[in-house]
């Protein structure tokens, strides 16, 4: 087993190498891969942001929300309506969406957070079920365009810098969504990190571990929870804006606007590692990879898949996705980040300084 | 004759070793007390014997090696464990608590229920109340009665006096004493209140950081100056 001293030359070298590798990878994707791949990463970024927003609520306060698809939808629709009907520039819709979702989030949180645990899960599930019906409601059609949704939402062209990947006649929207997604992801990550390291963050963790004790120590439990729920809602709305900008479409049946969306965000968070900063990132990348790989398994597959599923003319994609999720949970019950830490500790240990 | 004999009993929580090789023996009909400070490993010893935590070494009960057996089968062999904090089923009624205590038995349990209601009249008065609504002392009585419903040969009793008023504690110890002396029930008792425990015990083990540091019959331990000063407050 390798031992590395914290702050030593080797430690720094490893760190620099990691950062460089990630940076090269980030630039390589939009400049050298096909449009579909770029789009997959853009949608991974979107999902990661949504899972991060849930992580704030669940990972750090122990509360479950299955209603975040509604906030995602609020973001998506805010962007689409402002751009199409009011001629806004896409960039500004982020602020509008964040503010609207924050207000709605706080309004929902104030009464709802009295409810706990599994009850809260089911109440927020109701929010997720209600939201698409509301979008389709005849009385709101003037705003939401009803069941057919809003399409052909414009996006901004990026400045033409070669390393951004805009050259070579690539699909501008995918590249735009990729970089914008990355930017918002970094901002969302920094917000979450800041929240957790701050005094508020510590009080959050206090709430998760013991609410009564936190109250006794002078943490305003209700206000903190409502505030966090609002912030989480606006982060999720940012993901919704991104999704609208990258696909140009938003409908009441869009998979992230419905209950399915909430479930996917939760899956990503738990698979990656609930309550860890990097969990949603790992979870999001793995989920999008799994989803695309299994989706690629058609009904005419050969090899092992063809051998096992030759009897059906339906795609086994979802079944394999389900099985994969079960396997991940069996081997990494606390998430992939936990598994990764456990495995890497067997290979390398970083020794703290001064020991 | 030896009813329970542990040899080199070890247990740990995660990376932390809590029991570092405990040797204790309970003979048929004896009342044995384990004394020690908080964190010495008293409760862990009890849990190791009743099989609620992973452990290693050897535990021989009535000629059977039980260190590899789980809690469910150990009850069937005749060890009943009254856990610390009582562990009553608060959503079940008092009578249901007693019935579930006799889960392993196939025969009729009505006469046993009657008997414990006679021994603890206050439980009889509250037999259709939820156990969660009882006072601390009543819950402790219920926990002991529930354990005895399985007709054990060895009763493990973990700090029954915790949080109880002195009068209630005395009543409880009176019952334990008469069970032990009149019915020949073997008891392994963990107790913080050493003065009280020494009065009813035959044999005493003194635990410190996961090891037995002294043992002997109750009189000699009570007479030992060093032990008196360290554990018995004078």
């Amino acid at each position: 087993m390798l031992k590395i001293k914290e702050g030593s030359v080797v430690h720094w070298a490893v760190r620099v190498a990691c950062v460089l590798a990630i940076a090269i990878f980030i630039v390589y994707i939009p400049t050298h891969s096909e449009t579909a791949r770029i789009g997959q990463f853009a949608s991974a970024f979107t999902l990661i942001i949504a899972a991060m927003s849930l992580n704030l609520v669940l990972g750090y306060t122990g509360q479950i929300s299955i209603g975040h698809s509604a906030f995602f939808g609020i973001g998506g629709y805010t962007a689409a309506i402002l751009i199409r009907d009011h001629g806004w520039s896409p960039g500004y819709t982020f602020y509008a969406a964040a503010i609207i979702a924050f207000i709605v989030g706080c309004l929902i949180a104030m009464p709802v957070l009295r409810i706990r645990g599994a009850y809260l899960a089911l109440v927020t599930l109701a929010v997720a079920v209600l939201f698409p019906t509301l979008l389709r409601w005849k009385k709101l059609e003037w705003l939401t365009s009803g069941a057919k949704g809003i399409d052909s939402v414009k996006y901004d062209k990026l400045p033409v810098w070669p390393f951004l990947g805009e050259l070579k006649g690539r699909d501008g929207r995918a590249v735009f969504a990729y970089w914008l997604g990355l930017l918002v992801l970094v901002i969302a990550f920094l917000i979450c990190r800041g929240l957790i390291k701050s005094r508020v963050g510590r009080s959050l963790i206090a709430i998760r571990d013991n609410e009564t004790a936190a109250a006794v120590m002078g943490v305003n439990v209700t206000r903190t929870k409502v505030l966090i729920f609002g912030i989480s809602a606006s982060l999720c709305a940012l993901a919704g804006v991104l999704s609208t900008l990258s696909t140009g479409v938003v409908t009441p049946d869009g998979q992230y606007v419905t209950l399915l969306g909430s479930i996917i965000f939760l899956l990503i968070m738990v698979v990656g590692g609930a309550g860890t900063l990097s969990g949603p990132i790992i979870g999001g990348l793995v989920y999008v990879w799994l989803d695309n790989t299994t989706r690629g398994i058609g009904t005419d597959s050969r090899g092992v898949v063809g051998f096992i599923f030759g009897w059906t003319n339906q795609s086994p994609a979802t079944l394999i996705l389900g099985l994969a999720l079960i396997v991940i949970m069996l081997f990494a019950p606390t998430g992939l980040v936990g598994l990764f830490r456990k495995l890497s500790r067997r290979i390398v240990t970083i020794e703290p300084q001064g020991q | 004759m030896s009813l329970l004999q542990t040899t080199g009993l070890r247990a740990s929580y995660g990376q932390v070793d809590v029991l570092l090789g405990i040797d204790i023996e309970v003979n048929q009909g004896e009342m044995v007390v384990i004394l020690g400070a908080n964190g010495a490993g008293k409760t862990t010893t009890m849990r190791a014997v009743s099989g609620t935590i992973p452990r290693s070494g050897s535990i021989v009960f009535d000629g059977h090696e039980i260190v590899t057996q789980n809690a469910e089968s150990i009850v069937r062999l005749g060890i009943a464990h009254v856990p610390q904090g009582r562990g009553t089923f608060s959503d079940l009624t008092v009578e249901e608590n007693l019935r579930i205590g006799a889960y392993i038995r196939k025969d009729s349990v009505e006469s046993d229920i009657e008997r414990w209601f006679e021994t603890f009249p206050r439980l009889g008065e509250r037999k259709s109340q939820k156990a969660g609504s009882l006072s601390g002392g009543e819950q402790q009585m219920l926990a002991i009665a529930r354990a005895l419903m399985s007709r054990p040969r060895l009763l493990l009793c973990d700090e029954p006096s915790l949080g109880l008023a002195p009068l209630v504690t005395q009543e409880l110890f009176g019952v334990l004493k008469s069970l032990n002396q009149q019915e020949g029930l073997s008891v392994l008792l963990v107790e913080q209140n050493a003065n009280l425990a020494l009065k009813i015990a035959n044999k005493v083990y003194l635990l410190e950081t996961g090891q037995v540091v002294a043992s002997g019959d109750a009189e000699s331990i009570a007479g030992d100056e060093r032990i008196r000063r360290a554990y018995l407050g004078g």
Partner: protein
Amino acid sequence: MERLLQYVFDGLSFGAIYALLALGLVVVFRGTGHLNFAQGEMAMFCTFIVWQINDWGVPLILAVAIGMLFGFALGAGAEATVIRSVAKKSPGGVFVVSIALFLGLNSLATMIWDRAEGYTMKSLFPNKDVDFVRILGAEWRYKYIGVLIVALALMGLLFLLFSKTKFGLAMRSVASNPESARLVGVPSGLVLASSWGIAAAMGALSGALVGGINGQLTPSLMFAVFIYASAAATLGGLDSPGGAVIAGLSIGIGEQLVAGYAPGWIGQDLKLSVALILIFVVLLVKPSGLFGSLKVERV
């Protein structure tokens, strides 16, 4: 008045089905503290099994019994093999596993029974146009009466199991205090697996009843029913079987009343929404449902 009676009666039959599925959720929640999001899909899958066995020529009533046994095995098997080992290490993991079961079962059903237009499901009860009695002016169809009777009978049996048998006592003891249950010798593993099994078997029956009423069987059979059932379980209190039944029946009736009497501007689409919003309001007043118990936490 006739209209009102008709709505109430139809509502009772649907409500009984919601109550059956909701009871399944409650049995699992009481035993393990988890929500089984795959409850509806397990029921759907079992209903396909029932259809298949019936299609092979076995009488429907026998097929339903076999389907319920299959459901028991499916539920108990899922608990014993996957749920238990994940639950020990991460409560969030159980959510993922139940969603994975949801996805997997739905996909598997689509693969095995792949006719796009679905399958024709027979009803357990007489179901011709003339099969009804008229009571107080309302049409009481035999199939609805049958559903109501079967569902109520099964609930009755379940209450007897819970309150009168040793096994029921063991189940309640595991729900109340798992550690102490082990100490008195209750085989908690067996009990937990059985709770999942019983829940899934009840789901199988509710699926067969829904299929019989609809006359049609597709993999999306239980989506809406599951939403109503989870609403019923929440409304009644997740740890209260009696609450689940009362809430299930009320939601069934409420749904029919809203659909029948609601002003035009609400529309059929918002039928479900009205039910959910009402539940919302109830929960704001009583955060653990109408009949659920609030756990008192000690610091």
